[in-house]
């Protein structure tokens, strides 16, 4: 039989991502893979492991801990890194944390800026990383649809959407001056469905919060928030109720809305996704600010 030299779309996307990851390892002195503990990160991390098999991945993982993440995320992170022999760096904005910055007291905008964006920028400066992988996809959000796979950042980590380097074929321009850096998005061409299918096909472990379960939630501004520690403000405490919910994205618990769901397997999640009518980022509270809010955050250095 003559073999057919054809890859499925998932294998083609996988090969493209591995090519990108290897290119960064070969061309940069000090890359890092940013790890958000979400499903996209889990796929990206698996692709990095595959890219260097049977060797060890030649760069560390870094998690920016806003100090408001779900406890299950932190447990999952530590276990995954330990079992899969990753060098894991965890960084936080401790100054802001000690000053008591949080979403309930300072609002989502100030919290995100200090505990995520600033914490990330400080960490990138501290370790002098010249390339940072992120798990963003172009189909997630309008301003991401235009970003290059190798996305140039100036000395101040800023992105200029009008001045992006042309990017052709699979030839990536990795040249930068000292102090500048490149954000690299190996999952650029993956869709949400591709991610779920790949997780299913490859049996990739993900945080259990993605699966539906009875959980305590309280409704805050139309979002179902799961209080994950004792920092829930007084006025909501007697409104907590048990509901069968799951999370479509993971982040800081006060800023991540749950959805009511019965989907407790990947198949059911995909089925829910194909038949449901809410796109995934709407459960992330930080997006509600303004129309062009993500573009603004990205210019400032947010992933």
């Amino acid at each position, binding site marked *: 039989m003559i*073999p*057919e*030299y*054809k*890859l*499925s*779309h998932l294998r*083609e996307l996988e*090969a*493209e991502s*591995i*090519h990108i990851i*290897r*290119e960064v390892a*070969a061309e940069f002195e000090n890359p890092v893979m940013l790890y958000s503990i979400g499903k996209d990160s889990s796929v990206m991390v698996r692709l990095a*492991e*595959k*890219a*260097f*098999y*049977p*060797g060890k991945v030649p760069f560390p993982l870094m998690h920016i801990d806003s100090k408001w993440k779900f406890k299950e995320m932190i447990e999952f992170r530590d276990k995954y890194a330990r079992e899969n022999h990753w060098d894991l760096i965890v960084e936080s904005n401790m100054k802001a944390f000690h000053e008591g910055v949080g979403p309930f007291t300072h609002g989502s905008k100030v919290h995100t800026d200090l505990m995520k964006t600033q914490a990330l920028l400080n960490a990138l400066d501290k370790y002098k990383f010249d390339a940072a992988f992120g798990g963003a996809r*172009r*189909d997630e959000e*309008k*301003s*991401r*649809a*235009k970003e290059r796979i190798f996305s140039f950042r100036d000395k101040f980590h800023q992105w200029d*959407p*009008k001045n*992006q*380097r*042309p*990017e*052709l*074929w*699979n*030839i990536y*321009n990795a*040249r930068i*001056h000292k102090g500048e850096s490149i954000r690299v998005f190996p999952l*650029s061409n993956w*869709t949400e469905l*591709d991610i779920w*299918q790949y997780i299913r*096909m490859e049996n990739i472990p993900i945080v259990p919060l993605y699966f539906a379960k009875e959980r305590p939630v309280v409704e805050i501004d139309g979002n179902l928030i799961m209080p994950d520690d004792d920092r829930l403000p007084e006025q909501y405490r007697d409104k907590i109720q048990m509901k069968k919910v799951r999370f479509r994205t993971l982040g800081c618990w006060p800023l991540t809305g749950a959805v009511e769901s019965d989907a407790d397997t990947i*198949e*059911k999640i*995909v*089925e829910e996704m*194909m*038949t*449901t*009518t*809410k*796109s995934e980022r*709407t459960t992330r509270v930080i997006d509600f600010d303004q*129309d062009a809010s993500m*573009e603004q955050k990205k210019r400032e250095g947010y992933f």
Partner: protein
Amino acid sequence: MEKLDIKAFLDQDEKKDLLRLLTAGSVDDGKSTLIGRLLFDSKKLYEDQLDALERDTKRYGNAGDNIDYALLLDGLKAEREQGITIDVAYRYFSTNRRKFIIADTPGHEQYTRNMITGGSTANLAVILVDARMGVITQTRRHTFLVSLLGIKHVVLAVNKMDLVDYREEVFSRIAEDYRQFAAPLDIPDIVCIPLSALKGDNVVEHSENMPWYTGKPLLEFLETVHIGSDKNFEDFRYPVQYVLRPNLDFRGFSSTVASGIIRKGDEVVALPSMKRSRVKAIVTADGDLDYAFPPQAVTLTLEDEIDISRGEMLVHPDNLPMISRTFEAMLVWMDEKRMDPEERFFIKQTTNLSRVKIEKIRYKVNVNTMEQSPAEALELNEIARVVFTTDKPLFFDPYKKNKSTGAFILIDPITNNTSAVGMIIDKVEMKDMQELEVPEIHLSRLGIGEEHYEAIERVIHDLDRQGISVKLMKD
């Protein structure tokens, strides 16, 4: 959306292939509307994106009472204010038969750069024309760029048929004009489809307004066009990307198969060292393979310990690429900064990086008329045939034969911007390079006797094959 048997859906969906397409058209051709409709009608738009759309339409919309599909697409703030798409944007949608990635690129002149960017990985191009206007200068420009990029399938979407009363003769005249114009451009597959993106005619469903059209509607064509044989499976090229040495017992050469097929046990030769060995294993994290093909990303181990670095290439010994320091290429200037022909740029071709000198601009091409004219240097969006000399030999094929090894980028050594991109036409013999400065060796002045000349000439010939040119002076 109808109820799915989810397991069957997923099992089937995993096996779909991927089509990457480029769309080109001007601000007024209704390109964004067409893409919006493809996305919308393939039911991939979620309800809340539609909510956002209704909100946006009130603020910026310009399609009257209809939903403005274009607003689904335009992401960045600045361009919304201008009402035009200013950069390449990628869109994703899926049908039961295929997954699609659309590179949506603008059509107006100053952004040829972006169309080239969006088109480099495309299997197919959809070029839009307004049925009232027919084939215009811009259509010619887009088609020329598409042929330059080596895209093998073109759909001419004759849009706004509703505004010409769906008349067959209007469509036929445009299709005929276009085929005539495109005939010399070496595009193997051209299909013309009459449609109305705004009204949905021949986008997904056959149009009842145009019973005279018997071909496929656009989406059905995109779902069924055969792209499997577009890749080069003949010439094995493996530009080493990363050397994997996890321990003393394992030395693997990781990369993406650029073209051709490699099998376990195949004899290979490493360029430029010309050392030979055999493939011991094709290693992946999912187990060893018997063979690998493009664009698989694998790791090769060899029977013998030979030293190979990033940028070097493994090939079959009976099928070598061109190995040369001089070549000519079609070059597209992408930088706002005018070309400085004296600058020594970096060239990145496959995984190889070298310095490069611009030897000569043979001519530049007017993208609208395809006329050739002399040029001293190039400006943004200009296209020219240029001769280059690199510091070290490159391993390449003509772009027409092999996109993966025929493509390169030029990087400005000062700004690090990607200043230009190129598609190699052929190597240029050193002896044709009148202006090339080569070191001279005066044999008699060095006191070397005539009896050694023949041996020295043989060495010089060998060096020349490796791309190092030396001129012998006998008296």
